[in-house]
């Protein structure tokens, strides 16, 4: 628990040399050691008086006068001492065992980063081995909890697609984590040869100075992203957006209902019962606020970086091509202020709900239209061109037209208000869906990420000569579909977009985003078997590459 690797410059390249490495020396403490220390402290505090008795007992000296209960007192004292001794022994044993367990677990927890995969081994009795391919990484999340920051430690989480599919490295040195992230992304990007930059600054300062420097440093390193690409959220706007949320309306309605029921029906008991949970729900604001304070979105060479947090800071890097759908929405109360919110669908954290998963899919908690423009430009560079700018503007504001298809008036039966806004538009690499009258929505699906699309029609839409158009993406908060669309339009969109999706997927190279392969030649294209001629002609079709990570069952081996 003590052989501390000196955190020096170039540590990341040393970490990523393909050899097995251990985690940061303070990880056992940060992972569970503090709980242990706290429990021990609690026990010791309770036993304090007994302990004082135990060690500094004024023994019954000869000078003491004989008293009535003297004999009984000594027996009680001996009895007492025996008990305290046993308790002390137990505490010492537990302490020793935990220290041994923690340090053995720490020694057994090793990881290595090779050219194309990251592998983690852990466990004492049940060995666990997990390997993830670097080019399958969907996002890199770095968290620096407050306590860990005091120790100069940070947690890095590499997520790949799939349920609970991530590689956690908790904890590593704070300075090394950023380097490691850069190194992993560099390898994942397909750039094989690049000069390994070494940062020597800060290595000479003392320990305390370094910690202080890390604590006070801005959440986003100014040198890592061009300043004009950075989108920030003013604290006042953040507070305003939280106050004007639908949750507030809900809360006010509940409070009003409670007051009414308490005054008219005279059931004060209801009030007493519901008040604590109501107060607890205020935690929602605190959570959202702490998750969004000091928020910044910036473009780095290896993807979009989202950072936030005041005491506990986090940042999330999304490599290019990892966003499957984008939704820009405006809750009704935000309209006077012109605020918007951006949500995304991404693989990796798709099915995690609750507060833990929320900030992974909430890309921009609140922002003006200009911020939306910037962020959309970061995540979809194809949308920044002058010819597509009006589509975004139209998608956010216009009631009808503005480059989007129109929905016939008969759709009013099904969408009494929003039928004017319902429509789609296409760019060279994405499809934009506009809908919503009260809650305005603009959804963007990159065609290279589209999994499939379908047209559906039920009896009602058949009578109205309408149809539904669905764009199927990875599961997430964004559901890209148009509820009403003219039947003929739906069919032509189905035809053109299914072809466009195939073309976009074929030309997409974002899983190795920095690699620039030569475009497929016509000859190469011709040799691909066509479905009509190769029916049953293949003897040994190789199964597709596994989607996520290789995870081995525990091996019953005590190493």
């Amino acid at each position: 628990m003590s052989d501390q690797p000196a955190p020096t410059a170039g540590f990341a390249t040393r970490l990523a040399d393909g050899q097995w490495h251990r985690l940061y020396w303070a990880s056992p403490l940060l992972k569970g050691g503090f709980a242990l220390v706290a429990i021990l402290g609690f026990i010791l505090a309770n036993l304090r008086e007994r302990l004082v008795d135990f060690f500094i007992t004024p023994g019954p000296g000869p000078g003491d006068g004989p008293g009535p209960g003297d004999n009984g007192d000594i027996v009680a004292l001996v009895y007492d001492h025996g008990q305290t001794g046993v308790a002390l022994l137990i505490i010492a044993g537990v302490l020793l065992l935990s220290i041994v367990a923690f340090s053995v677990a720490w020694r057994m927890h090793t990881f290595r980063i090779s050219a194309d995969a990251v592998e983690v081994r852990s466990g004492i009795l049940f060995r666990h081995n997990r390997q993830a391919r670097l080019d399958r990484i969907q996002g890199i999340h770095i968290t620096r909890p407050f306590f860990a920051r005091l120790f100069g430690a940070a947690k890095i989480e590499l997520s790949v697609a799939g349920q609970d599919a991530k590689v956690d490295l908790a904890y590593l040195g704070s300075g090394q984590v950023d380097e490691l992230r850069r190194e992993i992304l560099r390898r994942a990007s397909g750039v094989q040869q690049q000069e390994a930059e070494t940062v020597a600054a800060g290595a000479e300062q003392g320990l305390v100075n370094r910690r202080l420097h890390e604590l006070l440093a801005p959440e986003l390193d100014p040198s890592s992203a061009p300043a004009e690409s950075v989108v920030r959220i003013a604290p006042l706007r953040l507070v305003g957006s939280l106050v004007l949320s639908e949750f507030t309306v809900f809360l006010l309605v509940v409070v009003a209902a409670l007051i009414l029921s308490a005054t008219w029906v005279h059931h004060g008991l209801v009030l007493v019962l519901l008040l604590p949970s109501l107060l607890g729900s205020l935690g929602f604001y605190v959570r959202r606020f702490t998750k969004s304070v000091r928020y910044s979105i910036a473009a780095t060479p290896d993807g979009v970086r989202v950072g936030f947090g005041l005491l506990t800071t986090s940042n999330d890097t999304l490599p290019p091509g990892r966003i499957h759908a984008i939704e820009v929405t405006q809750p009704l109360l935000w309209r006077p202020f012109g605020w918007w919110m951006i949500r995304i669908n991404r693989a990796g954290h798709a099915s995690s709900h609750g507060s833990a998963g929320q900030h992974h899919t909430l890309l921009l908690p609140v922002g003006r239209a200009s911020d939306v423009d910037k962020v959309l430009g970061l995540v979809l560079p194809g949308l920044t061109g002058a010819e597509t700018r009006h589509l975004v503007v139209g998608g956010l504001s216009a009631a009808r037209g503005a480059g989007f298809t129109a929905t016939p008036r008969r759709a009013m039966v099904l969408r009494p208000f929003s039928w004017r806004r319902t429509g789609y538009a296409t760019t060279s690499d994405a499809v934009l869906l506009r809908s919503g009258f009260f809650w305005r929505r603009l959804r963007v699906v990159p065609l290279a990420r589209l999994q499939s699309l379908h047209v559906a029609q039920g009896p009602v839409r058949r009578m109205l000569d309408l149809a539904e158009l669905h764009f199927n993406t990875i599961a997430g908060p964004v559901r890209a579909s148009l509820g009403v669309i003219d039947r003929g339009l739906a069919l032509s969109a189905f035809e053109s977009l299914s072809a466009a999706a195939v073309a976009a997927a074929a030309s997409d190279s974002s899983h190795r985003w920095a690699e620039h392969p030569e475009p497929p030649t016509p000859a190469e294209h011709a040799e691909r078997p066509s479905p009509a001629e190769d029916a049953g002609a293949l003897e040994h079709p190789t199964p597709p590459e596994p989607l996520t990570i290789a995870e081995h069952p525990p091996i019953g081996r005590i190493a």
Partner: protein
Amino acid sequence: MSESSDSGPLSAGLAGLAGPDDDWQRVSPKYVAVEFAASVLAGLIMSAISVFFIVVAGWWLGWWMLGASLIVTIVLLVVAPRRARAIGYRLRDDDLLMRRGIMFFRIVAVPYGRMQLIDVNRGPLGRALGLSDLKFVTAAATTAVSIPGLPEEEADALRDQLVALAETRRTGL
């Protein structure tokens, strides 16, 4: 709610989209038997529940339930052949088209490269008739492409062919 023919307005539009109607690969005619059996089974279960209510609970509502379940079963049995005929798939150059449904019509296009895995299932009745169900799974749960009622060897051949096609057109997630 009246449905006169196999080709509703949307499927009529499909003729232009996906070639003549004959281009669709249909499922085995024997699949109708599976649909029949499923409808009869559902009808029997609903009737049994109704009878339970009539006999044990003595509710007059049970008679209505019994009548309704019988009518639903008869309607299902009548439309079953057409529903089976409405299921079809087509292998285009770069994607798989799949259609099903009469009243609730749905047509899906899935690029081959999006395949994550293919399931071939056989139910007890399907096995007796030599039929398999093939399911094409993508990373999006809403894709829901499943082709029921394929003859066993056809299902296996189709699976191998789809896997091979996916291999040549593999893309990222």
